[in-house]
């Protein structure tokens, strides 16, 4: 149906998450309609990203340099480590501009039913960091899902033994959210995590 290079492009686009056959077709036709230079820039960006981006050997964030920009920043508080599941969670926290410590990216969450155990995550490396660095607080910024709970409980069990304070980010209603529409679980957690004002 399609000429061979177009079929190949559609096939490769389809492999991306959230892209079905229709979207892949639309994207391919869009790329072909644009000036050739744009497609070449996209191809160049893809090649550069895959060739240059690796992981930081300290925090395991995605980075073109090792250590990453955040680990190299001198103004950061070395005694605080914020543990996140994925690099995109780190980006979300950095966007707040509230946290000035260091990070540690686990590379996922414990999910026994999917065959992801603690040994597949960078938990050993975190414990080594906490055990050797002068870390006073470990903040667990992990999703409030079952897998998140599991990872949090596992981490707190092992990190606490090493001495630092272990805290977890609060859960509850989103800013601007409506109490009436919140589900029972979210409200229960919000009540559980209430604080004095």
């Amino acid at each position, binding site marked *: 149906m399609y000429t061979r290079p177009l079929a190949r492009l559609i096939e490769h686009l389809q492999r991306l998450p959230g892209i079905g056959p229709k979207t892949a077709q639309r994207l391919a036709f869009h790329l072909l309609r644009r000036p050739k230079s744009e497609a070449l820039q996209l191809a160049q960006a893809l090649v550069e990203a895959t060739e240059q981006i690796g992981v930081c050997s300290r925090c395991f964030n995605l980075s073109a340099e090792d250590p990453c920009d955040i680990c190299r920043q001198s103004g950061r508080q070395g005694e605080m480590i914020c543990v996140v599941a994925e690099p995109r969670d780190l980006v979300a926290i950095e966007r707040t501009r509230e946290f000035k410590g260091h990070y540690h990216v686990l590379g996922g969450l414990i999910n*026994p039913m999917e065959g992801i155990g603690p040994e597949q995550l960078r938990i*050993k490396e975190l414990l080594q960091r906490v055990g050797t660095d002068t870390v006073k607080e470990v903040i667990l910024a992990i999703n409030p899902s*079952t897998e998140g709970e599991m990872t949090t409980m596992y981490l707190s069990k092992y990190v606490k033994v090493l001495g630092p304070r272990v805290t977890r980010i609060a859960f509850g209603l989103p800013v601007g959210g409506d109490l009436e529409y*919140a589900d029972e679980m979210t409200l229960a957690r919000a009540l559980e995590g209430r604080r004095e004002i």
Partner: protein
Amino acid sequence: MSGKTYRATGINLRRMPLGESDLLMTILTRENGLVRAVARGARKANARIGGRTEQFVVNDLQLYRGRSLDQLTQAESLRTFPGLLQDLGRLTAAQYLAEGVLQEAAEGQPQEDLYDLLLVHLERLAATPSHQIAARLVHGVYQLLAVGGVAPEVHFCTVSHRPIAAESAGFSVEAGGLVALECLSHERAGFRLDIEQVAALQLLADADLTPASLDWNYLWIGLERLLRRHIEFHFDRPLRAATLLEMCFEPLAVPAGASPQ
């Protein structure tokens, strides 16, 4: 209500991210057995349905029958098990039960007994102290297998069919349960069980364990491994949650290179 919309009461057993912000849910419903449904936008921070898609939440569901996957249109939570989220061992044991149910449950037909039994055992697990988790788990696993008719035989020799009571015996995964000692040599892959292990195994067939037996922690940990072999042999698939469970039952050990300050 249109023909494509239906209601069901279900326990969330598994959830997987799908696309940008959706979830693919696997739910054990009382009325329709295992249902796979998409919860659109459930991963968004302001999603109304968010918390109701969590694992082990029991919901009154409204679903829309799709071509390949159903769609979760509404959910009203009926029951949650907050106790499971307070202990790693409890949560892992609950996942173990869920994994077993996912292997056993059928799609498109009522699963009332399995559903009711899973609720009972989740409730017991959620309230159990750490040292009794193994007992609750092993009992739950046996009972869930029994509902499906695949529990190991614990009262009769699976080879000679003679009753076994207050005696040591063997256990053969291939034969499907206890084997009298005199018959054990015929079984290639048999395990030898002492009198206490046989007695504990026979207790599993009762609706609940005796209060005293709940404290036989090491005995139950051993029997969990036996039952696991039985499940894995029967369903020809490994139980993934079991690996983490072993860690929960192990004493605390800090990985090498990380020493207390």
